[in-house]
């Protein structure tokens, strides 16, 4: 068929504006010319008749969808309505005199009055479409003075439509990037082939977000270049993705982030349209100009670029496109296509709300309304926008190797390219998905994303047989979407309008041959799909609203901009008050429920669901899935945790039992597991019990109150069965491995707590206490009830400790020293802290133990520099003894880690004593005796230490004194009499005397 007149006009105004077919005058819209007033009286009656007739034909052609793009025609009509004046071109025809016959060749529009008259004539016949536009457009139309002047009736109907419209588009806050959350189920070590792959991916995630943040910060700066700024870092990161499994992890992250950030086609940048006055009127007239300039500055780059813009990647989408381009990784692209294809199929097949054919219409309506208000329409929008985004990127990547800046190939080249390309299978069988979508009456979901996919095709694609047939189907669909036909069960008006808008846009994209629309007629026969077939599908559900229409087709907003620019007096697309659309958030895309049902029971269950509303099935499957999963978690937290506790106590027994040589940890683990794993069998019975107990209540809570008792109990039973099956399948496959893993972790934890020195282990009762404490802490994350904790902690104690030790070790300033009160306070704090234990960790306690021994050595050697009158620089011996007693009680009662008391007799500390003049051994002897008496050290142990001390090289006098000390210590009765000790106390110099003797 030949091009209809409307299309001819449209091509002139849209794609090839400015090109004059003949020398006729053209409507001019440039802003610097004042608008010429239009007057209906100046349209001659002959001209009226002629224009009316053309308008009638033109409207009929539009109504029957014989034009490729409805909105382009409307745009043209509004351009005529808002033409400022006519400019003559070349040999312009003079107005034919009255009475002269109108030749077909004479220009249709001779002046502005003709233009406006024609436009109003057409608009009168398009009122239905117009009334579905957004409220802002309606207001501008209703307030247009030319329209009022030429057709007051149309104006009043438009005003009524405006007042009745609820198609408001709300202002939105720009949202900043949110990261994809880490989910242990898919992201932890168990999902990777090796530690290396796991850690590589860990780094990649961080690099990816680092790059994203940098892009956010800089991409709007002039002169910033994606490739220059980030390209090499991206490629370095992609280079690390050696394992195929890492690629799929990264692609999943990439795709999730894409969905999270860009679902709104404008991304954070938003789409610009809306209703001007209510925000602007608040600001006052003087600020209006400034605001507009500001808005132009902010939003000009996001302008949708005319009524028929080429496909773009606005806002955040630009990041993902540039990332793909910079990465230029074949593997990444392939994994990405796989992942996108899968997700598209998954979402495209999602069960979305359908009107339920119910005998009771009233109830069904209520049900639908409830679900609609509860966000079912929003769910559709989320799914559809996600699909469009994914399909756009799939198209981008799939056709990337074939697309370039160069012009389409010439006819001669085409044939060889076609031969090559026609044998390449499509990346995703979109034709089958389209056919299924049409048959299932889900075109409103499938077609919009398919259009996005095709919009990124290269010039050759529409010529390939496979894709030609798709275009054929789409043309056929386009023709069938007659807006004026509203039948019961047919497609809703806005659904149709959306499809017309996206298809119209597709037919105008440069890579789609211009003549395709007019030549392909009747070629879809072979693939004829019974679109007319009655039956209800998504298409007949009002899932599309103006918000979604404008979100998907921001270019429809150009109509409003055109009208606004007429009001503001400026020209082009700078006019128009622009607003943002609320971004749709990503929430649960409703992962598909796994279909693991088998056997006769499963078949019976299927049969049960067949005649029930789909929501029942969804509910039961949902409950089963959740309860099954909760059940596994519960078993982990109870049964497995109990077994781990048992493992810990078994381990303790093995470690502390005397004579039990510590075995190889692997062997230890084996023996523990062989004892404990058989208990895992209890898991299945516990799981059954859990599901039996929990599922029915959940089903009852989620199903309508009025559900018949028999249906309810069947649903409950099926839910119990499914949940049990799910839980038991998982448990029987995994329980042993799970127990092993947890026990292994507990064993290595316990061994770590035990500390690195096996020799010291079990040496003191404090050891077992410390480890049992650690085990106890490992089991319960909450601290045990403690004495009132003061924030009086190890660091507050260790710091002064270091100071005292440093002071003692010197060098020190003359005025430096410690007061006895300070030492006492320090020891008191230490004791308090050890008793409270709130802030202690084993390494800190070990260090404190060592420091306390050092302090004791200093006291014994009288090396603590005391503050006080210059004569008395040393600690009074009675006081030193008191401090030693305090230390002894700390070691005995407060420390729970082994105290390295043998350090007291280390050559270094003995050297401290040896260096003092005069040497006094009494405190050391006292200390050693007390250690033995209080059971802190064995006699044999001390004897061994003294023995090895004597072997070291000492000056002769010291050797002699050591020998005396040794014999004195040995001579001491095992249980010394108190009198003897008392006597020592009053004879402070006895040690020296003794040594000199």
């Amino acid at each position, binding site marked *: 068929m030949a091009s209809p007149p409307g299309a001819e006009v449209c091509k002139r105004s849209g794609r090839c504006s400015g090109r004059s077919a003949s020398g006729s005058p053209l409507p001019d819209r440039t802003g610097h010319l004042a608008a010429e007033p239009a007057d209906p009286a100046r349209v001659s009656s002959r001209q009226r008749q002629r224009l009316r007739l053309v308008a009638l034909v033109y409207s009929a052609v539009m109504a029957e969808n014989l034009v490729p793009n409805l909105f382009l025609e409307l745009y043209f009509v509004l351009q005529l309505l808002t033409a400022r004046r006519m400019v003559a071109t070349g040999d312009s025809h003079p107005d034919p005199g009255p009475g002269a016959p109108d030749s077909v060749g004479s220009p249709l529009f001779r002046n502005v009055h003709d233009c406006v008259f024609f436009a109003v004539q057409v608009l009168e016949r398009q009122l239905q479409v117009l009334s579905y536009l957004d409220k802002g457009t309606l207001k501008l139309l209703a307030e247009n003075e030319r329209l009022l002047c030429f057709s007051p009736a149309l104006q009043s109907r438009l005003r009524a439509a405006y007042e009745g419209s609820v198609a408001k588009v709300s202002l939105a806050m720009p949202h900043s990037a949110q990261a994809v959350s880490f989910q242990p189920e898919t992201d*932890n070590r168990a999902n990777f082939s090796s530690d290396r792959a796991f850690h590589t991916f860990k780094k990649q995630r961080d690099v990816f977000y680092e790059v994203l943040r940098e892009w956010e910060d800089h991409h709007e700066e002039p002169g910033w270049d994606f490739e220059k700024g980030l390209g090499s870092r991206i490629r370095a990161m992609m280079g690390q993705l050696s394992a195929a499994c890492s690629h799929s992890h990264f692609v999943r992250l990439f795709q999730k982030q894409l969905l999270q950030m860009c679902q709104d086609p404008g991304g954070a940048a938003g789409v610009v349209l809306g209703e001007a006055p209510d925000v602007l009127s608040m600001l006052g007239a003087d600020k209006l100009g400034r605001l507009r300039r500001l808005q132009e500055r902010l939003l000009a780059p996001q302008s949708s670029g005319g009524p028929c813009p080429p496909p773009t990647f606005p806002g955040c989408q630009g990041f993902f496109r540039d990332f793909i381009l910079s990465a230029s990784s074949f593997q990444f692209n392939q994994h990405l296509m796989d992942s996108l294809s899968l997700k598209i199929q998954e979402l495209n097949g999602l069960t979305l709300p359908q009107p339920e054919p119910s005998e009771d219409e009233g109830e069904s309506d209520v049900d639908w309304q409830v679900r609609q208000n509860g966000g079912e329409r929003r769910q559709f929008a989320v799914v559809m926008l996600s699909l469009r985004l994914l399909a756009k990127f799939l198209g981008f990547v799939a056709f990337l190797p074939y697309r370039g800046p160069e012009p389409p190939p010439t006819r001669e080249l085409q044939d060889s390219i076609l031969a090559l390309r026609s044998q390449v299978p499509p990346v995703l069988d979109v034709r089958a998905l389209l056919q299924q979508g049409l048959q299932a009456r889900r075109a409103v979901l499938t077609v919009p994303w398919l259009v996005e996919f095709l919009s990124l095709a290269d010039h050759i694609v529409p010529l390939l047989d496979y894709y030609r047939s798709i275009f054929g189907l789409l043309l056929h669909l386009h023709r069938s979407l007659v807006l004026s036909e509203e039948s019961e069960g047919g497609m809703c008006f806005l659904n149709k309008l959306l499809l017309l808008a996206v298809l119209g846009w597709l037919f105008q994209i440069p890579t789609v041959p211009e003549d395709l629309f007019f030549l392909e007629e009747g070629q879809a026969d072979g693939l004829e799909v019974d679109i007319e077939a009655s039956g209800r599908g998504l298409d007949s559900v009002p899932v599309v609203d103006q918000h979604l229409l404008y979100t998907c087709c921001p270019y429809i907003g150009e109509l409003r901009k055109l009208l606004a620019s007429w009001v503001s007096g400026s020209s082009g697309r700078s006019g128009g008050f622009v607003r943002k659309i609320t971004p749709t958030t990503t929430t649960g895309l409703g992962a598909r429920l796994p279909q693991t049902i088998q056997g006769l029971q499963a078949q019976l269950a299927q049969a049960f669901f067949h005649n029930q509303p789909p929501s029942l099935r969804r509910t039961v499957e949902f409950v089963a899935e959740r309860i099954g999963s909760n059940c596994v978690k519960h078993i982990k937290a109870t049964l497995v945790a109990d077994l781990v506790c048992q493992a810990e106590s078994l381990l303790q027994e093995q470690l502390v039992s005397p004579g039990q040589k510590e075995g190889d940890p692997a062997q230890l683990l084996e023996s523990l597991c062989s004892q404990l794993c058989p208990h895992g069998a209890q898991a299945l019975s516990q799981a059954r019990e859990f599901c039996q107990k929990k599922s029915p209540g959940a089903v009852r809570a989620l199903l309508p109150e009025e559900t018949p008792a028999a249906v309810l109990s069947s649903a409950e039973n099926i839910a119990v069965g499914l949940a049990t099956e799910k839980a038991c399948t998982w448990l029987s496959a995994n329980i042993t491995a799970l127990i092993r893993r947890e026990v292994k972790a507990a064993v290595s934890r316990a061994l770590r707590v035990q500390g690195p020195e096996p020799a010291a282990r079990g040496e003191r009762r404090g050891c077992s206490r410390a480890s049992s404490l650690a085990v106890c802490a490992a089991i319960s994350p909450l601290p045990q009830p403690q004495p009132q904790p003061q924030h009086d902690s190890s*660091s507050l104690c260790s710091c002064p400790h270091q100071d005292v030790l440093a002071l003692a070790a010197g*060098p020190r300033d003359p005025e430096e020293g410690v007061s006895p009160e300070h030492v006492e306070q320090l020891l008191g704090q230490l004791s308090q802290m050890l008793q409270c234990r*709130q802030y202690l*960790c084993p390494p800190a306690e070990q260090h404190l133990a060592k420091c306390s021994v050092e302090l004791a050595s200093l006291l014994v050697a009288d090396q603590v520099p005391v503050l006080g009158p210059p004569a008395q620089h040393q600690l009074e011996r009675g006081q030193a003894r008191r401090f030693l007693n305090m230390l002894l009680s700390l070691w005995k009662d407060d420390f729970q880690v082994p105290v390295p008391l043998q350090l007291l007799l280390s050559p*270094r500390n003995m*050297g401290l004593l040896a260096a003092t003049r005069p040497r006094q051994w009494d405190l050391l002897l006292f200390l050693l005796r007390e250690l033995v008496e209080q059971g802190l050290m064995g006699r044999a142990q001390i004897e061994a230490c003294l023995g090895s001390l004597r072997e070291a090289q000492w000056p002769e006098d010291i050797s002699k004194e050591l020998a005396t000390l040794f014999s004195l210590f040995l001579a001491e009765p095992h249980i010394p009499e108190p009198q003897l000790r008392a006597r020592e106390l009053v004879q402070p110099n006895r040690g020296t005397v003794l040594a000199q003797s």
Partner: protein
Amino acid sequence: MILTKAQYEEIAQCLVSVPPTRQSLRKLKQRFPSQSQATLLSIFSQEYQKHIKRTHAKHHTSEAIETYYQRYLSGVVKDGAAPVLLELANEMDYAPSLMARIILERFLQEHEETPPSKSVINSMLRDPSQIPDGVLANQVYQCIVNDCCYGPLVDCIKHAIGHEHEVLLRDLLLEKNLSFLDEDQLRAKGYDKTPDFILQVPVAVEGHIIHWIESKASFGDECSHHAYLHDQFWSYWNRFGPGLVIYWYGFIQELDCNRERGILLKASFPTDIVTLCHSISSS
């Protein structure tokens, strides 16, 4: 203690070429009496570490090691009880503990057949009694206890401080009834990066959503904060969303510039916490 960049730089200025001893710290405290000891020590320690990082290499050339060792030997021959090693470190503007390590390593090379392993040296530094030479043992010990920025004792103190602030934070969270997962629980679940606490139900602090809290028992200066951002905080954000960092010993005010982005800095446990209300009747 939140400091402006200028205030911080004034303190840092006083720390150029100051040995890491308690005397230096005392002087610093006298100079800035309004700052807490812990904040000053933290700043001192960080500044000193920067200084050491810059100069580390020159102390490890074989010539330098030889010179130090000879000076040590001649010093202890003269008087073994004098603080030879400590004074050498101060004179060379190097951390006493690190100087002790250089000399010990050199000493062992000379006296043992096989070059000493790192773990042997570490163990001797932890417990100088194990050093075969009594004089050197005393010298090393003196260096370690007199060094307030490096050495096993300082490491242990730092570790203890970090631990105790985590405990403190945990207590505060429990007191506020905020349920959380701690680092050990997260690790057990296989998280690849683990902040100190992840809140099971997010809260808002000063109008910002918080999913996790990290405790830092140090002062947040530019250098350490940027390292933490890169290695930890952004990684947490990348996995768990926005969160809160508490620098218990304060930070430079200007660093708190990523609030909108999702990293909030505080110098204490926040008082302005808004929790999710459990009334579903309104929705």
